[in-house]
């Protein structure tokens, strides 16, 4: 690890004022710290968001859900109100990494990082979520702009995400055999007959929606409705664990399993 200085922020404004040009926000540190240890990242300042109370917690008001950026995966997984309003998202959080990761890693860190294999981004797209920052609101559709890329400006802080709970939802993932991140993670959400499908792990431009599947499922929410949908391997990632063809195949298998589970 390269030398760095550490600042514990006590408010969002304090954090934003300390970040500078070469600083990085530290959330759970589950992604950022290993990268620093491998000397692949060298921020001159770490601004720790962990102690900003405003950024934490889940609130559910009828179908309206809001989750603070610094809420850990374990908290999302264990929140009773969320479990009844949107069980699929609570379950997704419980399937991220291992217990240690779930007790440190945060939803804000996950979406700000936009690892193409991360689970949350698929859910944000399918849930038509809004990403709240210290300066604006961004729709999930506009937020995930490319692999490891988001609409966030330099120094902009994700403060929360919010969405209206769908009538039904389900997430199925095929895990990368080694890292166990998503290699094909498909979130299907039914918003009153209007179905949205978010996909993680497979597309080369990061989390994406699959409009062919959405069309096929809107009005006919059954696994069979996906039989005729061809998933284009041309847009898919390819690595030693999964060629683009294999990923395209898995996206369909996971989508069918998700629909069957709804």
């Amino acid at each position, binding site marked *: 690890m390269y030398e760095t200085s550490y600042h514990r922020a006590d408010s969002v404004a304090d954090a934003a004022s300390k970040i500078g040009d070469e600083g990085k926000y530290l959330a759970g540190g589950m992604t950022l710290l290993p990268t620093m240890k491998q000397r692949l990242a060298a921020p001159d300042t770490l601004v720790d968001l962990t102690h900003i109370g405003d950024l934490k917690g889940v609130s559910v008001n009828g179908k309206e859900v809001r989750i603070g950026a610094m809420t850990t995966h374990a908290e999302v997984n264990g929140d009773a109100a969320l479990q009844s309003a949107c069980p699929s998202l609570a379950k997704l959080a419980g399937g991220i990494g291992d217990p240690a990761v779930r007790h440190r890693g945060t939803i804000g860190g996950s979406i700000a990082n936009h690892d193409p294999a991360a689970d949350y981004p698929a859910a944000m797209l399918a849930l038509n979520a809004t990403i709240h920052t210290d300066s604006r609101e961004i729709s999930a559709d506009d937020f995930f702009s490319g692999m490891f890329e988001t609409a966030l400006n330099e120094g902009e802080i994700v403060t929360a995400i919010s969405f209206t709970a769908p009538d039904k939802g389900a997430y199925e993932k095929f895990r990368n*055999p080694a890292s166990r991140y998503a290699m094909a993670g498909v979130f299907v959400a039914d918003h009153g007959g209007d179905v949205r499908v978010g996909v993680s792990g497979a597309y080369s431009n990061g989390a994406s929606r699959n409009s062919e599947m959405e069309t096929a499922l809107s009005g006919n929410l059954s696994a069979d409705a996906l039989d005729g949908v061809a998933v284009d391997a041309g847009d898919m990632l390819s690595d030693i664990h999964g060629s683009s063809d294999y990923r395209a195949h898995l996206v369909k298998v996971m989508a069918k399993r998700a629909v069957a589970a709804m």
Partner: protein
Amino acid sequence: MNAHTPLQFGKKIGMGQAVTRTEDAQFITGAGRYTDDVKRDNALHAAVLRSPYAHAKFTIGDLDVARGMAGVHLVMTASDIEGHPGITCQAVQQQIDGTKHPVKDIPLLCADTVRHVGDAVAFVVAESIAQAQEAAEAIEVDYEMLDPAIDTEGALADDAPPVYEDRPNNIAFETEHGNSDKTAEIFANAPKVTELKLINNRLVCNYMEMRGCVAEWSDEEDRYTLTVGSQGVHGMRDAITPCLKVDKAQLRVITPDVGGGFGTKVFAYREYPLALLAAKALGRPVKWRCDRSEHFVADAHGRDNVVTMRMAMDENGRFLALDVDLIAAMGAYLHQFAPYIPTLGTTIATGVYDIPACRFHIRGVYTHTTPTDAYRGAGRPEAIYALERLVDQCARDMSMKPDEIRRLNAIPDSAFPYKTVFGRTYDTGEVTAHMDQCMKVADWDGFDTRAEESRKSGKLRGIGMSTYIEACAFAGSEPAKLELKDDGTVQLLIGTQSNGQGHKTAYAQFVAEALDLDMGSIEVRQGDTDELESGGGTGGSRSIPLGGVSVQRGSQALAEMIKEAAAEKLEASVGDLELSEGSVRIVGTDRKLTFADVAAATSETLKATGEFKQAEATYPNGTHICEVEVDEATGETQVVKYTIVDDFGATVNPILLAGQVHGGVVQSIGQCIMEETVYDDDGQLISASFMDYRMPRAEDIPDFHFETRNVPSTTNALGIKGAGEAGTIGATPCVMNAIVDAVYRSHGIEHVDMPVTPQSMWQLMSQAAKKAA
């Protein structure tokens, strides 16, 4: 055992008893003391500058920048240590033409050519690890990239880039074993021949504890001290002293707790002599710690064979002769025991079968990859994997059942002791009996019902077996030294080295039984060349078969000495004395002396040595049966049922034994369906971290049914056959035979190589489906 466990003496905790591990409380609560826990106040820290290329010539430019950086004490390159030999291969083989092959040693630092990614270019010592790393990065190295030879079989091609100019076709050595002429003759007239070609995939060891060392020099003592994780301090010392150009008396090696070795920690690695030379030059201790990323490229890898086998049979499926052609990747240098590893396979190449003729041809091949060496089982898992896969293929070709062809060809009970074509003598075994027992407990006959159940959830189910034999505890001995301490406790010194197996528990059981002493009063010490002048280390499942018997004998000798000393004091004859719960007592009376009293009464400390010498290896054997489910939609394979019936001769501690077997099987499941070491054509290791190298986890592993059906060894004094590697040896073919069974039933697929990843299985099934369409 912990503070709340009542004291238990003698037979209650002696041989065969399920004593819980005395080590565990310490390990589980973080109180273990590993190499990295060894701190020295004024220690400096080292980092290695490693080659980013598989094959390149290089020159080192300016060093002044690095040398001038904050905290930097030393920047060492090859020219600074000229005249210090590299780490030399200790296992030179006799080749077919009678010559000994030349050896390419591992240079401590490369002088002008790097031969694998991770090869060492410079050694930097600074006040902190970060400073050492930063300085290493500041060294200017000008690399001229050259074509590498990466693929094991491809490296033999005439146009493959040479790893060494003087080794045509990259052949490091070529040997042949068995009876070639007879084999050729039988094949010429054989009614049936089955052939199979397989890859035995390269593995990265991935012990929990990374390597590391603390190197020290003392002017007063005029010698070095090395604290290092090892599998035996004496072998480590002897491999390192030539690099330092000192004699054995000038290097003390200490090994504290070790978190896994699996063969790979037997070896001396270049960082150890480099750290020692630096410590002497700087007059301060030098600490080096390997990180996980370095481990992937710098520690010896395991396996990596391409094997082509043929079995000659008569019309009924009776085996007549076996022909094995093995290509074994050596990597860029000949590692310490590397050429010996494939050779070890020949000790059991014909397995549990009565095969009168066998030729075993081996070519060791240099490639621009990390060197390979012993990894749990060392050559024997490779040999049995190949054979047991071939036997299943023979069965399919002959339309026989797997157990039927095994039954037909197994060495009959009456033929033991059985001499193999390689001149080994299997002392005892009942091969079909453990197979029958295993089939019974695994409910082999009920498979079809389970397969139908699996089918309902889209899973293809397969069942497979392996009947293995292996050779271990090779000829030799491991003396045990026992001493009665003043406080009445007993100390054992022995030259093996626990890497987590539980030696302290197992050895203490022998002592406890012979002396009727409680475990808490027995101290087992290993890992210091100052305490013990020689030792054979741990490897080849030898510690308990050889060391255990020595400990028992030494304990019995000490028991006699204690009685003799007490007899004088108690004015009784030795024959009237018995040892009981830490005291010596006149039988039938309450007149007794505690061991502490005895120690106080003797003018000289009571010391005894036990040594059991074994002339032949021992031969554990057994049957594994497992069932797998392949998800037809995703290609993912899961091992869902696992049954083991082993013949380990005699059981010392069923808990330790099950631990060894479970661990071995898990490593094999890893090799079969997870662990894939991927080099690209440029020789970059693609699977260079846990993000890409899949290790088995608890959720991947089914419950095991494990039982023993022991037939005591007649070679070993206590009937013990050894069990440290058997799990790994039996399991790989078993799992793969089950996988082939699953997809042969569903798709007619016969050729499946390790590792069966979800993707590779999906591809196999897709291709088969396309062919069928």
